[in-house]
């Protein structure tokens, strides 16, 4: 891997924490901006993408897929190149402003009913700009912090950047919940949903002024003063075998596995509880929220630990544990919420029309519609099952922190200063945006396919899938297994020289 000159000394402690604070705050706001679109997807679709209009529905799918998967790597290339030519600081100021403007503008676009077809087109363009900005932000922030850090604390320092994705999700949910609770449901549906988008502009302005006063990365400044920056980072990163082989290694041996584990632990767990287990919407969010809150500190812990024992063993251990335990964990999650295996307290049953509320001996309740082949609508688990579910999701979050905590330092150390921003951003956003971002769609498809196959074979008695609800896990298990083997064999453990 890339090793060159002697280490630069790290910046002073006070400056370092300013650097970490300014970088993390900006990245946090970018994640917030990115998530509020997803969290308000239902409202947005009614305002901009009416389902009865097939073209608008097509644009809606495009907005979901294109911004999350396709545009992020392009943002990584575009802004990565800028960051390696003109500097880290100016580039991630641009990504911050671009994200803030796009988010604020989404909150100002008139709805489909007012301006017709222009509304979904404008929102799609703004969503694409959000994806582009996010693609450029992360690499800049990670590189900026790493290039200020002392070499032996690089994992610890950059791990603060790693916490921002989780905190961004928290803050987006909190702002939406606060906005909702401060007005009537009608007002929120009418105009209140715009508030979280508009709040972003205030946060971006604050973050812009904090970042504006920061200095350029010392390593980049030194490289520039010595004339060692690249004039064509794209060609140097991907056109030269010596660098390109490390881009491929970073993708297949680390970020690909990290991406699917991140999405399984933070998003598929949520979707599995809601869609497959039918757990109540609010209770599911609360379960995930508790697990995330309990787990977030471990990003920093594993970042710190990676400075002591190396990045590779921690990331690979996270991947291996996930591969080995995902199926038992999800099987247990399913059993804890499966009310058909619980004892109903029949005397406490409530019936209202076609809807029946059943109470079970462990404190769980289920809302069931119809008689005979009744359909379970929602399940609210009892206290014991709730705690167990939080623990099971927490274990998954722990795997996320193991693979994600050290990865910024790991990626930064793989590439030299002159092409670092470009080279590290692309594998990160392909791993997370494409391999990770596709996870919910692929996993849901596999579960649906298995359930449909069982339905077809129901009359013959022999079902092709013993546990169809676990089929979706094959996607993260296979991807993480391949990544584990490649990482184990081809990646070296020694933490590298950042120059």
């Amino acid at each position, binding site marked *: 891997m890339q090793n060159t000159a002697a280490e630069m000394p790290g910046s002073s402690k006070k400056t370092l924490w300013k650097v970490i604070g300014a970088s993390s705050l900006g990245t946090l706001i970018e994640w917030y901006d990115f998530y509020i679109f997803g969290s308000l997807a239902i409202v947005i679709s009614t305002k901009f993408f009416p389902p009865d209009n097939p073209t608008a529905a*097509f644009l809606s799918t495009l907005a979901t897929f294109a911004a999350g998967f396709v545009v992020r790597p392009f943002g990584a290339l575009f802004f990565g190149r800028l960051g390696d030519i003109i500097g880290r600081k100016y580039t991630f100021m641009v990504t911050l402003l671009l994200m803030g403007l796009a988010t604020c503008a989404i909150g100002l676009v008139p709805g489909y009913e007012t301006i017709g077809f222009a509304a979904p087109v404008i929102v799609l363009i703004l969503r694409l700009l959000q994806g582009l900005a996010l693609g450029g932000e992360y690499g800049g922030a990670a590189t900026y912090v790493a290039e200020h850090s002392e070499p032996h604390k690089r994992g610890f320092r950059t791990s603060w950047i790693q916490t921002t994705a989780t905190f961004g999700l928290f803050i987006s949910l909190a702002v939406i919940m606060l906005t909702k609770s401060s007005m009537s449901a009608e007002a929120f549906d009418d105009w209140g949903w715009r508030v979280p988008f508009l709040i972003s502009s205030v946060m971006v302005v604050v973050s812009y002024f904090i970042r504006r006063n920061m200095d350029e990365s010392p390593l980049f400044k030194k490289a520039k003063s010595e004339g060692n920056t690249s004039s064509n980072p794209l060609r140097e990163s991907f056109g030269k075998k010596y660098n390109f*082989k490390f881009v491929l290694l970073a*993708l297949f041996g680390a970020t690909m596995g990290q991406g699917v584990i991140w999405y399984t632990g933070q998003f598929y767990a949520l979707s599995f509880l809601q869609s497959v287990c039918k757990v109540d919407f609010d209770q599911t969010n609360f379960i995930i929220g508790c697990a995330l809150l309990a787990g977030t500190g471990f990003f920093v812990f594993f970042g710190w630990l990676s400075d002591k024992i190396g990045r590779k063993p921690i990331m690979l251990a996270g991947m291996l544990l996930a591969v080995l335990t995902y199926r038992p964990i999800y099987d247990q999650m399913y059993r804890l919420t499966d009310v058909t295996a619980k004892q109903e307290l029949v005397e406490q049953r409530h019936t209202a029309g076609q809807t029946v509320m059943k109470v079970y001996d462990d404190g769980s309740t289920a809302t069931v519609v119809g008689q005979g082949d009744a359909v379970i609508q929602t399940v609210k688990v009892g206290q014991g099952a709730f705690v167990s579910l939080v623990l099971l999701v927490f274990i998954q979050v722990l795997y996320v922190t193991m693979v994600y905590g050290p990865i910024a330092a790991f990626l930064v150390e793989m590439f030299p200063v002159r092409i670092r921003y470009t080279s590290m951003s692309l594998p990160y956003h392909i791993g997370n945006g494409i391999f990770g971002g596709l996870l919910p769609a692929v996993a849901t498809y596999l579960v649906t396919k298995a359930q449909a196959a069982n339905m077809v074979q129901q009359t013959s008695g022999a079902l092709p899938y013993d546990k169809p609800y676990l089929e979706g896990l094959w996607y993260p298990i296979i991807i993480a297994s391949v990544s584990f*083997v490649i990482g184990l064999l081809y990646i070296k453990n020694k933490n590298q020289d950042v120059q």
Partner: protein
Amino acid sequence: MNTIKRILGVVWIVLGLAAGYYLIVSQAIPQFSSGKGEDLVPAIIYTFILMPIITGGLCIFGWYALTGEYRDGD
């Protein structure tokens, strides 16, 4: 270890080709021919984004492994 790394290069190439075949034949072609608008975006993503990354990336990675680019000492 270097021999294992080289031999596995063949595995990565085969894996890349198999994944490409699966993505195009089992996923993209049926979705392109379904005629549904919502199937078009995933089909385009499989064909023009995912397939080139997985097949192209793993084949090049496998070739590099096979030719000893990742041998110890680098």
